[in-house]
C-alpha cells in the first residue's frame, strides 16, 4: 500500500514536470496564432484572451495582399531548395570519396576539412561580402547557395553513413564495368537516401531560417526571404506596430517547416543526433 502511494506520487511529479515544460514550449505558438487572429485591442487585454469571438483573418489578408508574402514564400523556397540540393550532392560525393577510397594526402585533407568547422562566420563575413559585391552577386540568390554548397559538416556526416556500405557491392559493380561516378549515382545514392533525407532536412531548415547572411546580401524587397521580410516589417512599424500582421507573417513562416518536421520527425532527429553522438 505504502509503495503504491509513493509510486503514484512519483508519477504525478514526473508527469507534472513534463506537462509544465510542454506548456512552456507550446505557449509561444499558441500566443502567436491567437494574436494573429485577434483584433489589435484584444492582444493586450487584461486578463489575456486566447480565443475571442472577434477573431478574424484580416491580418492574413493584409499580409498576403499588401505584404506580398506569397512572393516571399516562393523566394524562401527557391533559396532553401537550391541550397539543399546543391549541398546534398556535393556532401554525399565528398563523403563517398573519403569513405571508400585510399589516396595520397587523405589524412591531411580530412584534417583540414574538420579544422574548417572551428572558423566562426563572423571572421569571414566581411571579406565574403566584399567578394560578393565584386562579383556583382549581391541581390541574387547565388551567395546563399554557392559558397556553402559543400559543407564540412555534411561531408563528415555522409562519410560516416557511406562507410557502413559493404565494399563487395562496389567491387562487383566494378567487375561489371561500372565507372566510379556511375557507382556513386547508381549504387551509393539509392542506399544512402535515408541519410540524405536526414541531412537534407537540416540543410533545408537552416537555409529557410537563415538570417544574417541574407540580410547582408538581399536589399531588394522583391528578393527578400521570410526572416528578412519579417524583420523589415518589424523595423518599418517601429512606433506604430500592427502586431496581428507581424504575428500572421510569423505563423506563415513557421507552418511549412512545422509540417515538414511532423511528417519527417524520425529522420530529422536522426540527422541532428548522428553528428553529435558518433562524432
Amino acid at each position, binding site marked *: 500500500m505504502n509503495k503504491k502511494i509513493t509510486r503514484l506520487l512519483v508519477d504525478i511529479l*514526473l508527469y507534472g*514536470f*513534463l506537462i509544465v*515544460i*510542454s506548456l512552456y*514550449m507550446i*505557449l*509561444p505558438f499558441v*500566443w502567436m496564432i491567437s*494574436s494573429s487572429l485577434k483584433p489589435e485591442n484584444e492582444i*493586450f487585454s*487584461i*486578463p*489575456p484572451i486566447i480565443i475571442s469571438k472577434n477573431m478574424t483573418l484580416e491580418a492574413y489578408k493584409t499580409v498576403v495582399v499588401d505584404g506580398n508574402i506569397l512572393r516571399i514564400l516562393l523566394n524562401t523556397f527557391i533559396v532553401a531548395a537550391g541550397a539543399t540540393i546543391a549541398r546534398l550532392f*556535393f556532401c554525399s*560525393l565528398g563523403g563517398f*570519396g573519403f569513405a571508400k*577510397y*585510399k*589516396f595520397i594526402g*587523405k589524412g591531411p*585533407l580530412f584534417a*583540414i*576539412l574538420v579544422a*574548417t568547422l572551428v572558423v*566562426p*562566420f*563572423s*571572421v*569571414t*563575413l*566581411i*571579406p*565574403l*561580402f*566584399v*567578394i560578393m559585391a565584386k562579383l556583382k552577386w549581391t541581390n541574387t540568390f547565388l551567395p546563399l547557395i*554557392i*559558397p556553402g554548397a559543400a559543407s*564540412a559538416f555534411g*561531408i563528415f556526416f555522409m562519410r560516416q553513413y557511406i562507410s557502413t556500405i559493404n565494399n563487395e557491392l562496389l567491387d562487383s559493380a566494378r567487375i561489371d564495368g561500372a565507372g*566510379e561516378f556511375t557507382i*556513386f549515382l547508381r549504387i551509393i545514392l539509392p542506399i544512402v537516401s535515408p541519410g540524405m533525407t536526414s541531412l537534407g532536412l537540416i540543410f533545408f531548415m537552416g537555409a529557410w*531560417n537563415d*538570417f*544574417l547572411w541574407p540580410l547582408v546580401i538581399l536589399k531588394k524587397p522583391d528578393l527578400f526571404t521570410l*526572416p528578412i521580410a*519579417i*524583420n523589415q516589417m*518589424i523595423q518599418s512599424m517601429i512606433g506604430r506596430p500592427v502586431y496581428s500582421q507581424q504575428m500572421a*507573417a*510569423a505563423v506563415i*513562416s513557421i507552418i511549412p*517547416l512545422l509540417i515538414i*518536421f*511532423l511528417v519527417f520527425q524520425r529522420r530529422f532527429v536522426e540527422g*541532428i*543526433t548522428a553528428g*553529435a*553522438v558518433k562524432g
Partner: protein
Amino acid sequence: MKKKNQDKREENIDQSQKKSLWHEIIKARWPYFFVSPFYFLFLIFGAFPLVFSFILSFTAWKGTGPLVFNNFNNYKLILSDKVFWQSMENGLILFFMYVPFQTLLACVLAVILNSKRVKWFKFFRTVIFMPYISSMIAAGFVFQLLFGSRNGLFNSILGFFTIPPIPWLDSVWGARFALCALIIWAWLGYNMVIILAGLQTISSELTEAAMIDGANPAQAFFLITIPLLRPVILFCVITSTIGSFNLFGELMSLFHATGGVGPLNAVITPLLAVFGQAFHNFKLGYASTQAYVYFLLIFMVALLQLRFFNKEVD
C-alpha cells in the same frame, strides 16, 4: 666519375619515384574529383576571406580605395573598446545564466523520457523539440509580446495577482532573463534529443545494478548516468557556449527597438558588434580586428572547456 654515376642513378630513382607518385595520383584520380568541390569552394570562400580579413584587421579600410596599414592601431583601440568587451562579457554572463541550467534540465528530461516509466514518450519529445524549428526572428517577436514591459502577457498575468509590472526588456538583467527564456525555449529540445540519443548508446544495466546495490535514483543519475554521458554533454556545452557568443537573429527581433543590443548594451554579442562596425559604421578594417580577437578568445574558451571535462575523466 663513379660518384657522378651514383648521383645520376639516385636521380633516376628519384624521378621514377616521382613518376610513380604522379602515376598513382592520376590512377586514383576519382576520389580527388569527389572531394575537390569542398576544397575548391573553401579556397575561394573560406581560406581567402580568412587571410583577407587578417590583412584588413591591420587597416582602416572603409570598403573602397587602397589598403593602408595603420600598424597595430586597431589592436590598441580594441583594448579600450568598452562595447566590444561588454559583448564578450555578455557572452560569459549568458553562459553562466543558462548553459548549466539548460544542460541539467535536458539531462533530466532525457533520463525521464528514456525510462519506460512515462507513456506518450513521442508526444513529449515532439512538443519539447518543436520550438527548435522555429525561425528566431519570428520567435523573438513572439517573446517580445510575452515579455513586453507595458502590456506583455507575463506582466498582465502578474498584474492579475496585483504584482507590479517588471521591466523585462527595458532593464539590463530583465533583458538577459528574457533572452535566456527564449534561448531555453528554442534549444532545450535540441539538447534533450542529443542526450537522449547518447543515453540509448549506454546500457541501462549499470544504473539498474547500482539501484539494486542500494543507490537511490538521484545517486544513480549523478554518479553513473552523467559521467557516462560526458562526451555528449561536452558537445552540448561547447555548442551552447559558442552559440551564446553568436546570437544575432533573436536579438535583432527581441530587442529591435535598440537595434538588437538591448538596454545599455545588456545583450550585445561579439557577432552583433562586428556586424554594427562593418555594416552600419563601414569600418571594415576595425570590424575585422574585432572578429579576429573574438575568434582567438572563443577558441581558447573551447579549449579550456575541453581540458576541464577531460580532467574530470581522470
